[in-house]
């Protein structure tokens, strides 16, 4: 027991040091910058920033648009998930909903902005086809569409997963009890989902509130808090003190969100048994949900279509003949190829390091029988990283590591990504560990295994499918992220997303879409590969069982 604890203690010291240096230290620096003026602690900076009309306007703009986005995104995601779980539309259609609703996850948010411009702008595909521009897209309208596409996958995955765990038998009971359709909907669908709906609302609000990519592309004169922060930090006259204050303000919704989630945990409905039963077919409902879902999917796909069309058109909108010229140009440009290479290096290294870090952290909290304080501290780090806006992490790193050896290196980007995206993979593997037989380690020891032996021979093989998922999550997020690393890339370490931001100034949209397409293809390949490996692994297990 002592030896095992010894190994776990070493791992904990590593995890503790990692997050102390690369999470808490940068955050403390952000706080200090916000409350320090000429070395003296005061609230002057805060007062100065929050009394500025421009700041108040951008803050209220952010609140307004994030609230509307969260409401709509949660509603749309709910509708799509309902169609999958509570109607008898064909299976292929359900798969299509799944695919389209999660597709935006595979692209950087900054690309959505440009895609919207090329769909609904004056020279956009929609405008060309229908002969009119449907709305003024710069500012509120464009942001709303962009945020909706960005947040839909997260809300959809959350709600769809919870719906899987709703006991469908209750739907039958409700029919047999003579419920009106409204009462049936309330008791068997809405009420069991209420907690998840609130979580989805909070998550989507938070994502829209803190996203930088979409306002960078399409915000126009409608300034939001993320663009104000960017201008303060990397604008023509940088003001780091003001930036630090805005970063703190950005943290407020996160803190409120964490508190609200804790408070409403009681709302969560847990079923003792989940059964998937045949539900009576209601043809009208199938048609209605099917048609509305198809319209939603069409909306999402229509925005994305340009990303697949534009790179292969000679010169939009003047010469729309098919051409590989932009693709060839991209692959011939040493500069662009460099950022592609950098992106892959950073994403693969992040996926490897991030998977290892979250795996060992989860071992301590789920399997180690370590003191509650130690386990709780790792859970706290997970909650904190989940709630931290990427921009705040990036600014913290900028303050903390400017002038150090890791400035402008791959290492700072990789560590930043590992810390920023820690929460989800950690929760994934922790859940997997909790479900695993608690006696594995003891059995391993009794059979003469070292702790690492049991880890290698038992724990990792039993959790390998989750490891693949974690790897894929880190890789995809590293490929699409911009908000944190925009403050950290150097001349030699620029990645695709930051290059896209740069190309915006030269209006090289065809190049932007080629690069976005590359990210999309890389992410699709990674996802397919990981799904294949997971499937192979489970087949192997079935084969062993059958033997």
């Amino acid at each position, binding site marked *: 027991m002592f030896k095992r604890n010894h190994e776990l203690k070493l791992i904990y010291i590593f995890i503790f040091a990692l997050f102390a240096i690369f999470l808490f230290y940068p955050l403390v620096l952000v706080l200090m910058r916000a409350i320090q003026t000429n070395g003296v602690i005061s609230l002057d900076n805060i007062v100065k920033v929050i009394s500025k009309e421009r700041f108040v306007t951008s803050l209220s703009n952010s609140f307004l648009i994030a609230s509307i986005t969260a409401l709509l995104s949660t509603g749309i995601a709910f509708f799509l998930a309902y169609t999958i779980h509570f109607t008898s539309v064909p299976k292929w259609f359900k798969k299509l909903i799944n695919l389209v609703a999660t597709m935006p996850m595979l692209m950087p948010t900054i690309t959505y902005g440009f895609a919207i411009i090329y769909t609904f702008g004056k020279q956009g595909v929609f405008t060309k086809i229908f002969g009119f521009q449907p709305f003024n897209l710069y500012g509120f309208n464009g942001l709303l569409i962009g945020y909706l596409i960005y947040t839909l996958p997260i809300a959809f995955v959350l709600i769809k997963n919870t719906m899987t765990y709703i*006991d469908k*038998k*209750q739907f*039958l*009971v409700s*029919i*047999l*009890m*003579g*419920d*009106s359709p409204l*009462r049936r909907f309330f*008791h068997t669908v809405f*009420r*069991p989902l209420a907690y998840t709906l609130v979580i989805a609302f909070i998550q989507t609000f938070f994502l829209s509130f803190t996203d930088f990519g979409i306002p960078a592309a399409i915000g126009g004169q409608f300034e939001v808090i993320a663009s104000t922060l960017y201008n303060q930090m990397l604008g023509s006259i940088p003001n780091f003190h003001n930036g630090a204050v805005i970063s703190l303000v950005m943290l407020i919704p996160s803190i409120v969100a964490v508190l609200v989630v804790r408070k409403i945990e009681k709302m969560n*409905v*847990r*079923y*003792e*048994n989940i*059964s998937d*039963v*045949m*539900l*009576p077919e209601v043809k009208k409902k199938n048609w209605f949900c099917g048609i509305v879902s198809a319209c939603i999917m069409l909306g999402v796909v229509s925005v994305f279509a340009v990303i697949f069309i534009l790179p292969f058109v000679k010169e939009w909108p003047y010469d729309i003949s098919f051409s590989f010229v932009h693709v060839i140009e991209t692959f011939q440009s040493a500069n662009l190829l460099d950022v592609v290479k950098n992106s892959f290096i950073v994403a693969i290294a992040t996926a490897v390091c991030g998977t290892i870090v979250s795996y060992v952290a989860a071992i301590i909290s789920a399997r180690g029988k370590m003191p509650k304080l130690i386990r709780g501290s790792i859970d706290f780090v997970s909650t904190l990283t989940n709630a931290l806006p990427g921009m705040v992490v990036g600014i913290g790193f900028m303050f903390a590591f400017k002038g150090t050896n890791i400035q402008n290196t791959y290492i700072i980007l990789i560590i930043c990504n590992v810390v920023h995206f820690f929460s989800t993979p950690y929760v994934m593997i922790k859940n997997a560990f909790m479900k695993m037989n608690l006696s594995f380690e003891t059995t391993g020891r009794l059979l003469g295994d070292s702790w690492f032996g049991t880890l290698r021979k038992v724990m990792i093989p039993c959790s390998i499918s989750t490891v693949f998922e974690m790897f894929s999550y880190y890789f995809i997020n590293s490929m699409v992220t911009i908000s944190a690393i925009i403050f950290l890339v150097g001349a030699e370490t620029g990645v695709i997303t930051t290059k896209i931001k740069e190309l915006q100034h030269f209006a090289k949209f065809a190049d932007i879409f080629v690069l976005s397409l590359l990210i999309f293809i890389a992410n699709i390949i990674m996802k397919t590969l990981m799904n294949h490996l997971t499937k192979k692994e489970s087949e192997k297990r079935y084969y062993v069982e059958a033997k």
Partner: protein
Amino acid sequence: MLTLNNLYKSYGDNTVLEDISLSINNGEIVSILGSSGSGKTTLLNCLLGLVEIDAGTIELDGKDITHLPIEKRGLNIVFQDYALFPHLSAGRNIVYGWRNNPSVSTQEEVDDLIDLLDLREHLDKEIHELSGGQKQRVALARTLTLKPKVLLLDEPLSALDGVIKESIKDTIKQISEEFKLTTIIVTHDPEEALTLSDKVLILDGGKIAQYGTPQEIIEKPATKFVENFILHQLHIKRDNILKLFGDQHV
């Protein structure tokens, strides 16, 4: 009387129910017994109206209910896992359906039911605070407030242990008698079926292997399946008990 006339049901090439015909008198307890894949659940789903049958008719008191929606058939069910609403207390679960149809039972009848099932002291409890037997009784009460003509019980004893099992068996018999309620029980346990029911329907591969009283089944098994599979299980059980206690205790 519940009458099934020549019911057929297939999924693609796979025939799940074949020529099922039988009558159940009002107030009778009938068990549907069979192994996995014998068609028990499909027959239950057909009775309930969850699955459309390919051919045949279902009549209740002379009325054809074959194509009626599930809420209009006059049947109700207690599921194997009870399907209680976890966000409502035991009491609110019991009166859930009654609130939709208050004219079906009087307040006094609902109160009597609560007392009959010994649930008075558990009314304010959350569902997760109840034992398996209590959950079973709450689910029964919730269904009985609506006074169904036929009560379907899907594996009602499978999730319960020893003593509770016997007490629920008694409760089912008592309710059936008191309310003159036709009760259909789906089970895979021959002992349960033969000790609880007035008649037993044994299914084998979607066909009726035998339909008769427990006595008839024990004395004159109609097919090799009934003899080898159903009765054999009981013989093994009997032999084990004899080994354990000796003849004098049986």
